[in-house]
């Protein structure tokens, strides 16, 4: 099996690569590329994302044909795709970080700054927080409700249809931190930095 981590030169993806290689061992081939043919022929795709919503969308757009290839992979061929952090946020129709920016539009919704209640909560939301599993998700196999995951973000994804939400976390308000829509998965937290429980989520995705 080939799992491809999309390298679109936006942010630091070393930790994502290291964690997937750790979990995959020699059983699964982990590719890191922006090569469209390799992406097309993969079995699964990981879409990481660091930095701002706009910089990530700009990064995807700067590689000719990449967005179309990813959309075809996820929407037409319906093969499994995991978005991490801004990778998840980009599923939305629109993001409001820096300037209003059009998203991929795969899961209807928007990405807005976390309401920190006039400074009562510090931003970014950095550190280990517990996830409330609200709906069974294939990537949560053997993950306990209230498990700790590592977060670092200032913006949150607000889906229009809550049925895609599989987990939330409490910080200033109830923040959506995991989604699943058919073959499309996303986590706002960083499984690659969430120690053994995070690696289990990666393992679950690889074994889908």
């Amino acid at each position, binding site marked *: 099996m080939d799992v491809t981590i999309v390298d679109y030169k936006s942010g630091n993806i070393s930790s994502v690569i290291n964690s997937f290689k750790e979990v995959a061992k020699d059983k699964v081939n982990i590719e890191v590329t922006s090569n469209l043919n390799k992406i097309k022929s993969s079995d699964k795709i990981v879409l990481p994302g660091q930095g701002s919503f706009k910089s990530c969308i700009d990064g995807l757009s700067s590689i000719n044909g990449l967005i179309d290839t990813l959309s075809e992979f996820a929407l037409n061929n319906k093969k499994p795709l995991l978005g991490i952090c801004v990778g998840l946020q980009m599923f939305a129709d629109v993001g409001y970080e820096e300037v209003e920016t059009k998203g991929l539009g795969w899961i209807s919704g928007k990405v807005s700054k976390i309401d920190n209640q006039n400074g009562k909560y510090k931003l970014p939301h950095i550190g*280990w927080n517990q996830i409330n599993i609200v709906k069974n998700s294939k990537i949560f196999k053997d993950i306990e409700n209230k498990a700790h995951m*590592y977060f670092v973000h200032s913006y949150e994804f607000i889906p229009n249809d809550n049925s895609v939400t599989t987990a939330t976390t409490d910080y200033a308000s109830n923040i959506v931190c995991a989604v699943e829509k058919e073959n499309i998965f996303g986590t706002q937290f960083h499984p690659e930095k*969430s120690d053994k429980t995070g690696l289990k989520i990666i393992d679950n995705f690889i074994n889908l």
Partner: protein
Amino acid sequence: MLKNRIIPCLDVKNGRVVKGINFVDLKDAGDPVEQAKIYSDGGADEICFLDITASNENRDTIYEVVEKTSKKCFVPLTVGGGVRSIDDINKLLNCGADKVSINTAAVQNSKVVEDSSRKFGSQCIVVAIDAKRKDDGWEIFTHGGRNPTGINALQFASKMEKCGAGELLVTSMDKDGTQSGYDIELMQKISSMVNIPVIASGGVGTLEHLVDGIKSGASAVLAASIFHYGTYSVNEAKQYLASKDIPVRI
């Protein structure tokens, strides 16, 4: 609920741990990779490396250490010490660091903080502030605490927040190495002034000091010696904080 973080810090010189404790199950006490792994297995919420390599020809040793550590530890890794430019930050991130802490370069040229947080995201830019009491306030120092700057620490903290720092690592130079506790007043002042997380550093000698650090408003507490010398394990520290009703990840 967001938990308070405990961050053990390792001083690394020429690729080797300085002040490392000789754990029984450790093959090589001076190996930062093994030390970091013990910390992360013990429940450390993050790991911090401070590179104190003095000579330029040995500066590259830290990259190898970071690369090896990031393949074994799956909790966030912060690396600081000698970070001068966007290029240095880029290299550390590519080796597997999750955050880079900047001290002297941020004071000399705040544009480094602005540019790097825009390029890599605020989440990976930590500004390290070394502060020492002077008159009624605190003055910041650069070059590992050797050079006074005349700059007020509170004003500088506020400026760094505006420049895009994701976190502030605040070290009291008066307290560092004394094991008499954090400079609580300094932590309170900075934490209440900025809207980004503050990591308290410098002076931890007992577990009660960690409690005081969190109560001062810091989001995370950093300590070196109490963990280095095995006075307490990270897990013991967490159990103690939990017993004092401070939310931690256990």
